[in-house]
Protein backbone atom coordinates (compact mmCIF):
# COMPACT_ATOMS: atom_id res chain seq x y z
CA UNK A 1 0.00 0.00 0.00
CA UNK A 2 1.47 3.36 -0.94
CA UNK A 3 1.99 5.37 2.24
CA UNK A 4 0.76 8.62 0.77
CA UNK A 5 -2.44 7.23 -0.72
CA UNK A 6 -5.75 9.08 -0.49
CA UNK A 7 -9.22 7.64 -0.04
CA UNK A 8 -10.94 7.20 -3.36
CA UNK A 9 -14.36 8.25 -2.13
CA UNK A 10 -15.46 11.58 -0.64
CA UNK A 11 -17.77 9.78 1.78
CA UNK A 12 -17.91 6.62 3.86
CA UNK A 13 -21.41 5.31 3.14
CA UNK A 14 -20.85 1.57 3.34
CA UNK A 15 -18.13 -0.96 2.66
CA UNK A 16 -19.86 -2.58 -0.30
CA UNK A 17 -18.35 -0.18 -2.82
CA UNK A 18 -15.20 0.79 -0.96
CA UNK A 19 -12.07 -0.61 -2.60
CA UNK A 20 -9.83 -2.90 -0.54
CA UNK A 21 -7.00 -0.34 -0.67
CA UNK A 22 -9.17 2.24 1.07
CA UNK A 23 -9.99 -0.23 3.84
CA UNK A 24 -6.28 -1.00 4.26
CA UNK A 25 -5.50 2.71 4.30
CA UNK A 26 -8.03 3.41 7.05
CA UNK A 27 -6.73 0.49 9.14
CA UNK A 28 -3.15 1.72 8.63
CA UNK A 29 -3.95 5.22 9.86
CA UNK A 30 -6.03 3.84 12.73
CA UNK A 31 -2.77 2.38 14.04
CA UNK A 32 -1.25 5.86 14.21
CA UNK A 33 -4.30 7.24 15.98
CA UNK A 34 -4.30 4.39 18.46
CA UNK A 35 -0.85 5.58 19.47
CA UNK A 36 -2.18 9.14 19.78
CA UNK A 37 -5.04 8.15 22.09
CA UNK A 38 -2.61 6.35 24.37
CA UNK A 39 -0.50 9.48 24.90
CA UNK A 40 -0.75 11.39 28.17
CA UNK A 41 -2.46 14.17 26.20
CA UNK A 42 -4.74 12.55 23.70
CA UNK A 43 -5.62 15.46 21.48
CA UNK A 44 -4.02 16.49 18.20
CA UNK A 45 -4.91 19.67 16.31
CA UNK A 46 -5.44 18.24 12.81
CA UNK A 47 -9.14 19.14 12.39
CA UNK A 48 -9.06 22.36 14.35
CA UNK A 49 -10.64 24.43 11.55
CA UNK A 50 -13.45 21.96 10.85
CA UNK A 51 -16.95 21.49 12.16
CA UNK A 52 -18.54 18.07 12.43
CA UNK A 53 -22.28 17.52 12.88
CA UNK A 54 -23.41 14.29 14.49
CA UNK A 55 -26.95 13.67 13.31
CA UNK A 56 -28.47 10.81 15.24
CA UNK A 57 -32.00 10.17 14.08
CA UNK A 58 -31.92 6.84 15.89
CA UNK A 59 -30.85 6.17 19.46
CA UNK A 60 -27.24 5.40 20.03
CA UNK A 61 -24.96 5.68 22.99
CA UNK A 62 -21.62 4.13 22.23
CA UNK A 63 -21.38 4.95 18.55
CA UNK A 64 -22.24 8.59 19.20
CA UNK A 65 -19.83 8.81 22.12
CA UNK A 66 -17.13 7.14 20.10
CA UNK A 67 -17.56 9.51 17.16
CA UNK A 68 -17.73 12.50 19.46
CA UNK A 69 -14.56 11.47 21.23
CA UNK A 70 -12.82 10.88 17.91
CA UNK A 71 -13.85 14.33 16.69
CA UNK A 72 -12.76 16.04 19.89
CA UNK A 73 -9.43 14.24 19.92
CA UNK A 74 -8.84 15.64 16.43
CA UNK A 75 -9.77 19.11 17.75
CA UNK A 76 -12.82 19.52 15.52
CA UNK A 77 -15.77 21.64 16.58
CA UNK A 78 -18.68 19.32 17.28
CA UNK A 79 -22.42 19.87 17.10
CA UNK A 80 -24.78 17.14 18.19
CA UNK A 81 -28.26 16.53 17.02
CA UNK A 82 -30.52 13.79 18.20
CA UNK A 83 -33.96 13.16 16.83
CA UNK A 84 -35.65 12.83 20.20
CA UNK A 85 -34.78 16.40 21.17
CA UNK A 86 -35.11 18.12 17.83
CA UNK A 87 -37.49 19.64 15.33
CA UNK A 88 -37.92 16.24 13.64
CA UNK A 89 -40.47 15.74 16.40
CA UNK A 90 -42.22 18.83 15.07
CA UNK A 91 -42.61 17.34 11.62
CA UNK A 92 -39.63 18.76 9.73
CA UNK A 93 -38.50 16.74 6.69
CA UNK A 94 -35.04 15.23 6.44
CA UNK A 95 -34.18 17.54 3.57
CA UNK A 96 -35.07 20.62 5.58
CA UNK A 97 -33.25 19.46 8.67
CA UNK A 98 -30.17 18.87 6.59
CA UNK A 99 -30.28 22.17 4.70
CA UNK A 100 -30.60 23.97 7.99
CA UNK A 101 -27.60 22.22 9.41
CA UNK A 102 -25.57 22.90 6.30
CA UNK A 103 -26.46 26.57 6.40
CA UNK A 104 -24.40 26.46 9.60
CA UNK A 105 -21.33 25.61 7.45
CA UNK A 106 -20.62 22.08 8.55
CA UNK A 107 -17.68 20.25 6.92
CA UNK A 108 -18.42 16.68 7.93
CA UNK A 109 -21.67 14.96 8.78
CA UNK A 110 -21.93 11.74 10.77
CA UNK A 111 -25.41 10.33 10.35
CA UNK A 112 -27.40 7.49 11.82
CA UNK A 113 -30.94 6.82 10.70
CA UNK A 114 -33.44 4.00 10.96
CA UNK A 115 -33.98 3.99 7.17
CA UNK A 116 -31.49 2.36 4.81
CA UNK A 117 -29.95 4.71 2.27
CA UNK A 118 -30.25 7.98 4.17
CA UNK A 119 -26.49 8.54 4.11
CA UNK A 120 -26.53 8.08 0.32
CA UNK A 121 -29.43 10.51 0.05
CA UNK A 122 -27.39 13.13 1.89
CA UNK A 123 -24.22 12.46 -0.06
CA UNK A 124 -26.04 13.31 -3.28
CA UNK A 125 -27.36 16.58 -1.93
CA UNK A 126 -24.84 18.26 0.32
CA UNK A 127 -21.24 19.39 -0.14
CA UNK A 128 -20.04 18.00 3.23
CA UNK A 129 -18.28 14.65 3.66
CA UNK A 130 -20.78 12.07 4.92
CA UNK A 131 -19.99 9.23 7.31
CA UNK A 132 -22.65 6.58 7.72
CA UNK A 133 -22.98 5.65 11.39
CA UNK A 134 -25.65 3.05 10.66
CA UNK A 135 -28.60 3.21 8.28
CA UNK A 136 -31.44 0.86 9.19
CA UNK A 137 -30.53 -2.75 8.55
CA UNK A 138 -28.20 -1.78 5.70
CA UNK A 139 -24.63 -0.88 6.70
CA UNK A 140 -22.53 0.30 9.64
CA UNK A 141 -19.12 0.70 8.05
CA UNK A 142 -17.10 2.10 10.97
CA UNK A 143 -18.19 -0.81 13.17
CA UNK A 144 -16.96 -3.29 10.56
CA UNK A 145 -13.69 -1.36 10.24
CA UNK A 146 -13.09 -1.40 13.97
CA UNK A 147 -13.95 -5.10 14.06
CA UNK A 148 -11.38 -5.74 11.33
CA UNK A 149 -8.81 -3.56 13.11
CA UNK A 150 -9.37 -5.45 16.38
CA UNK A 151 -9.08 -8.83 14.65
CA UNK A 152 -5.87 -7.72 12.94
CA UNK A 153 -4.46 -6.52 16.22
CA UNK A 154 -5.21 -9.79 17.97
CA UNK A 155 -4.56 -12.44 15.29
CA UNK A 156 -2.39 -10.66 12.68
CA UNK A 157 -3.05 -10.40 8.96
CA UNK A 158 -6.60 -11.38 8.04
CA UNK A 159 -5.76 -12.80 4.63
CA UNK A 160 -7.08 -16.39 4.51
CA UNK A 161 -8.51 -16.25 8.05
CA UNK A 162 -12.01 -17.53 8.93
CA UNK A 163 -14.65 -15.42 10.60
CA UNK A 164 -18.12 -16.55 11.62
CA UNK A 165 -20.85 -14.02 12.32
CA UNK A 166 -23.25 -15.44 14.89
CA UNK A 167 -26.86 -14.60 15.58
CA UNK A 168 -29.31 -12.15 14.12
CA UNK A 169 -27.96 -11.64 10.61
CA UNK A 170 -31.27 -10.52 9.15
CA UNK A 171 -31.59 -7.32 11.16
CA UNK A 172 -27.91 -6.57 11.37
CA UNK A 173 -26.16 -3.77 9.54
CA UNK A 174 -23.02 -4.81 11.37
CA UNK A 175 -23.21 -8.23 9.72
CA UNK A 176 -23.56 -6.81 6.23
CA UNK A 177 -20.71 -4.33 6.61
CA UNK A 178 -18.56 -7.06 8.16
CA UNK A 179 -19.22 -9.37 5.24
CA UNK A 180 -18.36 -6.74 2.62
CA UNK A 181 -15.31 -5.47 4.47
CA UNK A 182 -13.82 -8.77 5.57
CA UNK A 183 -14.22 -10.40 2.17
CA UNK A 184 -12.22 -7.54 0.65
CA UNK A 185 -9.45 -8.27 3.14
CA UNK A 186 -9.35 -11.90 1.95
CA UNK A 187 -11.32 -13.41 4.85
CA UNK A 188 -13.60 -16.45 4.52
CA UNK A 189 -16.88 -15.37 6.08
CA UNK A 190 -19.61 -17.68 7.38
CA UNK A 191 -22.78 -17.05 9.35
CA UNK A 192 -24.50 -19.12 11.99
CA UNK A 193 -27.86 -18.49 13.61
CA UNK A 194 -31.53 -19.45 13.65
CA UNK A 195 -32.65 -20.01 10.06
CA UNK A 196 -35.39 -17.43 10.55
CA UNK A 197 -32.72 -14.80 11.19
CA UNK A 198 -30.52 -15.66 8.21
CA UNK A 199 -31.48 -13.96 4.94
CA UNK A 200 -32.12 -16.50 2.22
CA UNK A 201 -29.98 -14.68 -0.32
CA UNK A 202 -26.90 -14.63 1.94
CA UNK A 203 -25.13 -17.33 -0.07
CA UNK A 204 -25.16 -15.02 -3.08
CA UNK A 205 -22.64 -12.89 -1.19
CA UNK A 206 -20.29 -15.87 -1.06
CA UNK A 207 -21.06 -16.49 2.59
CA UNK A 208 -21.30 -19.99 3.95
CA UNK A 209 -24.11 -20.89 6.36
CA UNK A 210 -23.11 -23.18 9.23
CA UNK A 211 -26.20 -24.43 11.05
CA UNK A 212 -24.65 -25.70 14.26
CA UNK A 213 -22.87 -23.18 16.40
CA UNK A 214 -20.37 -25.78 17.64
CA UNK A 215 -19.27 -26.55 14.09
CA UNK A 216 -19.02 -22.85 13.33
CA UNK A 217 -16.86 -22.14 16.38
CA UNK A 218 -14.62 -25.09 15.60
CA UNK A 219 -14.13 -23.78 12.07
CA UNK A 220 -13.54 -20.12 12.85
CA UNK A 221 -10.54 -18.04 13.92
CA UNK A 222 -12.90 -15.28 15.04
CA UNK A 223 -16.54 -15.31 16.09
CA UNK A 224 -18.28 -11.96 15.76
CA UNK A 225 -21.35 -12.39 17.94
CA UNK A 226 -24.24 -10.06 17.24
CA UNK A 227 -26.84 -8.67 19.56
CA UNK A 228 -30.35 -10.04 19.34
CA UNK A 229 -32.19 -6.92 18.22
CA UNK A 230 -35.54 -7.26 19.92
CA UNK A 231 -36.48 -3.73 18.89
CA UNK A 232 -36.27 -4.56 15.18
CA UNK A 233 -38.28 -7.76 15.43
CA UNK A 234 -41.87 -7.20 14.44
CA UNK A 235 -42.77 -10.86 14.93
CA UNK A 236 -41.42 -13.93 16.70
CA UNK A 237 -38.31 -15.19 14.93
CA UNK A 238 -37.48 -17.80 17.55
CA UNK A 239 -39.58 -19.45 20.25
CA UNK A 240 -37.96 -17.91 23.33
CA UNK A 241 -34.84 -16.19 24.60
CA UNK A 242 -34.10 -19.32 26.58
CA UNK A 243 -34.20 -21.47 23.50
CA UNK A 244 -32.07 -18.97 21.58
CA UNK A 245 -29.47 -19.02 24.32
CA UNK A 246 -29.48 -22.78 24.40
CA UNK A 247 -28.78 -23.15 20.69
CA UNK A 248 -26.86 -19.98 19.79
CA UNK A 249 -25.64 -18.55 23.08
CA UNK A 250 -21.90 -18.77 23.67
CA UNK A 251 -21.03 -20.32 27.01
CA UNK A 252 -17.74 -21.30 28.60
CA UNK A 253 -18.88 -24.89 28.52
CA UNK A 254 -19.27 -24.67 24.76
CA UNK A 255 -15.86 -23.02 24.33
CA UNK A 256 -14.17 -25.58 26.57
CA UNK A 257 -15.24 -28.36 24.20
CA UNK A 258 -13.35 -26.77 21.28
CA UNK A 259 -9.86 -27.71 20.17
CA UNK A 260 -9.04 -24.04 19.75
CA UNK A 261 -11.17 -21.19 21.02
CA UNK A 262 -11.79 -18.41 18.50
CA UNK A 263 -11.45 -14.74 19.34
CA UNK A 264 -14.86 -13.43 20.44
CA UNK A 265 -16.10 -10.05 19.25
CA UNK A 266 -19.39 -8.33 20.03
CA UNK A 267 -20.46 -4.90 18.79
CA UNK A 268 -22.33 -4.15 22.02
CA UNK A 269 -24.48 -3.56 23.88
CA UNK A 270 -24.38 -7.17 25.12
CA UNK A 271 -27.51 -8.95 26.24
CA UNK A 272 -25.67 -10.85 28.95
CA UNK A 273 -26.97 -14.38 29.20
CA UNK A 274 -28.49 -14.29 25.71
CA UNK A 275 -25.76 -14.13 23.03
CA UNK A 276 -22.92 -14.49 25.50
CA UNK A 277 -22.71 -15.48 29.12
CA UNK A 278 -21.04 -12.99 31.41
CA UNK A 279 -18.26 -15.47 31.95
CA UNK A 280 -17.41 -15.45 28.24
CA UNK A 281 -17.86 -11.72 27.82
CA UNK A 282 -15.40 -11.01 30.64
CA UNK A 283 -12.91 -13.71 29.63
CA UNK A 284 -9.61 -13.15 27.82
CA UNK A 285 -11.17 -14.79 24.73
CA UNK A 286 -13.34 -11.70 24.26
CA UNK A 287 -11.98 -8.53 22.69
CA UNK A 288 -15.05 -6.45 23.39
CA UNK A 289 -13.33 -3.63 25.27
CA UNK A 290 -10.52 -3.59 22.70
CA UNK A 291 -13.23 -2.97 20.14
CA UNK A 292 -14.50 0.03 22.07
CA UNK A 293 -11.01 1.53 22.35
CA UNK A 294 -10.20 0.82 18.72
CA UNK A 295 -13.50 2.36 17.66
CA UNK A 296 -12.21 5.80 18.57
CA UNK A 297 -8.94 5.28 16.68
CA UNK A 298 -10.68 3.93 13.58
CA UNK A 299 -13.18 6.79 13.55
CA UNK A 300 -10.35 9.29 13.92
CA UNK A 301 -8.70 7.71 10.89
CA UNK A 302 -11.90 7.91 8.85
CA UNK A 303 -12.57 11.55 9.74
CA UNK A 304 -8.93 12.52 9.21
CA UNK A 305 -8.68 10.86 5.80
CA UNK A 306 -11.97 12.31 4.59
CA UNK A 307 -11.05 15.79 5.81
CA UNK A 308 -7.67 15.62 4.11
CA UNK A 309 -9.41 15.48 0.74
CA UNK A 310 -10.67 19.03 0.71
CA UNK A 311 -8.96 22.38 1.09
CA UNK A 312 -10.31 24.79 3.69
CA UNK A 313 -13.08 27.07 2.47
CA UNK A 314 -12.05 30.60 1.57
CA UNK A 315 -8.39 29.64 1.52
CA UNK A 316 -6.69 29.46 -1.85
Amino acid at each position, binding site marked *: MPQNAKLQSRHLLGLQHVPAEDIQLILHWAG*HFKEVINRPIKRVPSLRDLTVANLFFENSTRTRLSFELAEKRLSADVVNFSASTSSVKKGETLNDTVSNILAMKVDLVVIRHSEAGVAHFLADRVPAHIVNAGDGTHEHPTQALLDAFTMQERIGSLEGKKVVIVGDILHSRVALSNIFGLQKLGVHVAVSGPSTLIPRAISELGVEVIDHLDDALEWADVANVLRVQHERMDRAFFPSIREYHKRYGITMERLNRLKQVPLILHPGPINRGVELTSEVADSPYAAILNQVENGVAVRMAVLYLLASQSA*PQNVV
Partner: protein
Amino acid sequence: MAPKTLLNQRECAVTISRLCHQINEVHVPWDRTVLVGLQPRGAKLLRALVAQLEAEFATGPVANGLLDITFHRDDFRRREEPLTASPTEMNVLIEGKRVIIIDDVLYTGRSVRAALDALGDFGRPERVELCVLIDRRFSRELPIQPDYSGRRVDALNHERVRLNWNGPTLESVLLESPDYAPER
Protein backbone atom coordinates in the same frame (compact mmCIF):
# COMPACT_ATOMS: atom_id res chain seq x y z
CA MET B 1 26.54 18.80 -13.76
CA ALA B 2 26.74 16.79 -10.57
CA PRO B 3 25.03 17.81 -7.33
CA LYS B 4 27.21 19.96 -5.11
CA THR B 5 28.75 18.17 -2.15
CA LEU B 6 28.15 20.05 1.07
CA LEU B 7 29.84 17.50 3.30
CA ASN B 8 31.93 14.52 2.24
CA GLN B 9 32.24 11.39 4.36
CA ARG B 10 35.13 12.65 6.46
CA GLU B 11 33.44 15.99 7.05
CA CYS B 12 30.20 14.22 8.02
CA ALA B 13 32.05 12.27 10.72
CA VAL B 14 33.83 15.39 11.99
CA THR B 15 30.59 17.36 12.08
CA ILE B 16 28.63 14.72 13.98
CA SER B 17 31.52 14.38 16.39
CA ARG B 18 31.57 18.16 16.93
CA LEU B 19 27.82 18.21 17.60
CA CYS B 20 28.34 15.52 20.25
CA HIS B 21 31.08 17.58 21.92
CA GLN B 22 28.93 20.69 21.95
CA ILE B 23 25.89 18.89 23.31
CA ASN B 24 27.94 17.06 25.93
CA GLU B 25 29.54 20.29 27.11
CA VAL B 26 26.13 21.75 27.95
CA HIS B 27 24.38 18.62 29.16
CA VAL B 28 26.87 16.83 31.35
CA PRO B 29 25.85 15.21 33.72
CA TRP B 30 23.33 13.37 31.53
CA ASP B 31 20.62 12.54 34.03
CA ARG B 32 18.10 15.17 32.93
CA THR B 33 18.49 15.25 29.16
CA VAL B 34 16.30 13.58 26.53
CA LEU B 35 17.08 13.53 22.81
CA VAL B 36 13.98 13.53 20.60
CA GLY B 37 14.39 12.77 16.89
CA LEU B 38 11.78 14.00 14.45
CA GLN B 39 10.28 11.31 12.24
CA PRO B 40 11.14 10.29 9.65
CA ARG B 41 14.41 11.95 8.70
CA GLY B 42 15.70 12.95 12.12
CA ALA B 43 15.69 9.33 13.27
CA LYS B 44 19.03 8.32 11.76
CA LEU B 45 20.82 11.41 13.01
CA LEU B 46 19.36 10.74 16.46
CA ARG B 47 20.75 7.20 16.43
CA ALA B 48 24.14 8.37 15.23
CA LEU B 49 24.35 11.01 17.97
CA VAL B 50 23.16 8.67 20.71
CA ALA B 51 25.61 5.95 19.63
CA GLN B 52 28.56 8.33 19.63
CA LEU B 53 27.60 10.04 22.88
CA GLU B 54 27.25 6.74 24.69
CA ALA B 55 30.49 5.35 23.22
CA GLU B 56 32.78 8.34 23.67
CA PHE B 57 31.43 10.59 26.40
CA ALA B 58 30.61 8.28 29.31
CA THR B 59 27.07 9.56 29.28
CA GLY B 60 25.51 6.26 30.31
CA PRO B 61 22.38 5.33 28.38
CA VAL B 62 21.04 8.47 26.71
CA ALA B 63 17.26 8.79 27.04
CA ASN B 64 15.76 9.25 23.61
CA GLY B 65 12.55 8.99 21.63
CA LEU B 66 11.13 9.45 18.17
CA LEU B 67 8.38 11.95 17.58
CA ASP B 68 6.03 12.05 14.60
CA ILE B 69 4.59 15.50 14.00
CA THR B 70 2.12 14.70 11.21
CA PHE B 71 -1.00 15.49 13.22
CA HIS B 72 0.45 18.80 14.43
CA ARG B 73 1.49 20.16 11.05
CA ASP B 74 -0.09 23.40 9.91
CA ASP B 75 -0.31 22.48 6.22
CA PHE B 76 -2.94 19.73 6.63
CA ARG B 77 -5.57 20.22 3.87
CA ARG B 78 -3.38 22.92 2.30
CA ARG B 79 -1.10 20.83 0.13
CA GLU B 80 -1.59 18.69 -2.95
CA GLU B 81 0.21 15.59 -1.68
CA PRO B 82 -1.40 13.79 1.27
CA LEU B 83 0.66 13.74 4.46
CA THR B 84 2.22 10.50 5.62
CA ALA B 85 2.68 9.51 9.22
CA SER B 86 5.45 7.54 10.94
CA PRO B 87 5.35 5.81 14.30
CA THR B 88 5.96 7.85 17.44
CA GLU B 89 8.13 6.02 19.95
CA MET B 90 8.19 8.18 23.04
CA ASN B 91 8.87 5.78 25.88
CA VAL B 92 10.57 8.46 27.94
CA LEU B 93 9.29 11.05 30.36
CA ILE B 94 10.02 14.61 29.32
CA GLU B 95 8.29 16.35 32.24
CA GLY B 96 10.88 18.65 33.79
CA LYS B 97 13.63 17.34 31.48
CA ARG B 98 15.95 19.16 29.10
CA VAL B 99 14.89 18.11 25.64
CA ILE B 100 16.99 18.41 22.49
CA ILE B 101 15.00 18.15 19.27
CA ILE B 102 17.07 16.42 16.58
CA ASP B 103 16.38 16.87 12.88
CA ASP B 104 18.41 16.59 9.71
CA VAL B 105 17.65 19.88 7.97
CA LEU B 106 16.21 23.12 9.33
CA TYR B 107 14.42 24.95 6.53
CA THR B 108 11.17 26.91 7.05
CA GLY B 109 11.03 26.12 10.77
CA ARG B 110 7.48 24.81 10.50
CA SER B 111 8.40 21.23 11.40
CA VAL B 112 10.08 22.48 14.55
CA ARG B 113 7.02 24.55 15.46
CA ALA B 114 4.87 21.45 15.01
CA ALA B 115 7.36 19.46 17.08
CA LEU B 116 7.16 21.96 19.96
CA ASP B 117 3.40 21.56 19.81
CA ALA B 118 3.60 17.76 19.65
CA LEU B 119 6.11 17.58 22.53
CA GLY B 120 3.48 19.16 24.74
CA ASP B 121 1.49 15.92 24.49
CA PHE B 122 4.19 14.19 26.51
CA GLY B 123 4.71 16.69 29.30
CA ARG B 124 6.28 20.07 30.03
CA PRO B 125 10.05 20.01 29.56
CA GLU B 126 12.24 22.35 31.58
CA ARG B 127 13.68 23.63 28.33
CA VAL B 128 13.88 22.65 24.70
CA GLU B 129 16.85 23.03 22.37
CA LEU B 130 17.25 22.33 18.69
CA CYS B 131 20.05 20.45 16.98
CA VAL B 132 20.21 20.13 13.20
CA LEU B 133 22.85 18.84 10.85
CA ILE B 134 22.13 21.38 8.10
CA ASP B 135 20.77 24.86 8.71
CA ARG B 136 19.34 26.40 5.53
CA ARG B 137 19.49 29.92 6.80
CA PHE B 138 17.51 31.47 3.97
CA SER B 139 13.73 31.00 3.72
CA ARG B 140 12.92 30.71 7.40
CA GLU B 141 9.20 31.37 7.84
CA LEU B 142 9.14 31.38 11.63
CA PRO B 143 11.46 32.83 14.29
CA ILE B 144 13.23 29.54 15.01
CA GLN B 145 17.03 29.07 15.18
CA PRO B 146 19.14 26.04 16.06
CA ASP B 147 21.20 25.79 19.25
CA TYR B 148 23.54 23.28 17.63
CA SER B 149 24.10 23.26 13.90
CA GLY B 150 26.39 21.09 11.81
CA ARG B 151 26.73 23.28 8.76
CA ARG B 152 25.08 26.50 7.68
CA VAL B 153 24.06 26.44 4.06
CA ASP B 154 22.85 29.11 1.68
CA ALA B 155 20.42 27.24 -0.55
CA LEU B 156 17.76 28.57 -2.84
CA ASN B 157 14.14 27.55 -2.46
CA HIS B 158 14.09 25.20 -5.44
CA GLU B 159 17.20 23.38 -4.27
CA ARG B 160 17.14 20.31 -2.04
CA VAL B 161 19.52 19.13 0.64
CA ARG B 162 19.93 15.37 0.61
CA LEU B 163 21.59 13.21 3.25
CA ASN B 164 22.99 9.89 2.07
CA TRP B 165 23.05 7.31 4.82
CA ASN B 166 24.72 3.96 4.47
CA GLY B 167 23.24 2.05 7.38
CA PRO B 168 24.15 4.02 10.51
CA THR B 169 26.89 6.00 8.73
CA LEU B 170 26.33 9.35 7.06
CA GLU B 171 28.31 9.22 3.83
CA SER B 172 27.61 12.60 2.31
CA VAL B 173 25.35 15.61 2.24
CA LEU B 174 24.50 16.91 -1.23
CA LEU B 175 22.80 20.01 -2.56
CA GLU B 176 20.61 19.12 -5.50
CA SER B 177 19.10 21.56 -7.90
CA PRO B 178 16.30 20.44 -10.29
CA ASP B 179 18.58 21.37 -13.24
CA TYR B 180 20.98 18.59 -12.42
CA ALA B 181 18.93 16.34 -10.16
CA PRO B 182 19.47 12.64 -10.90
CA GLU B 183 16.59 10.92 -12.64
CA ARG B 184 14.13 9.39 -10.19
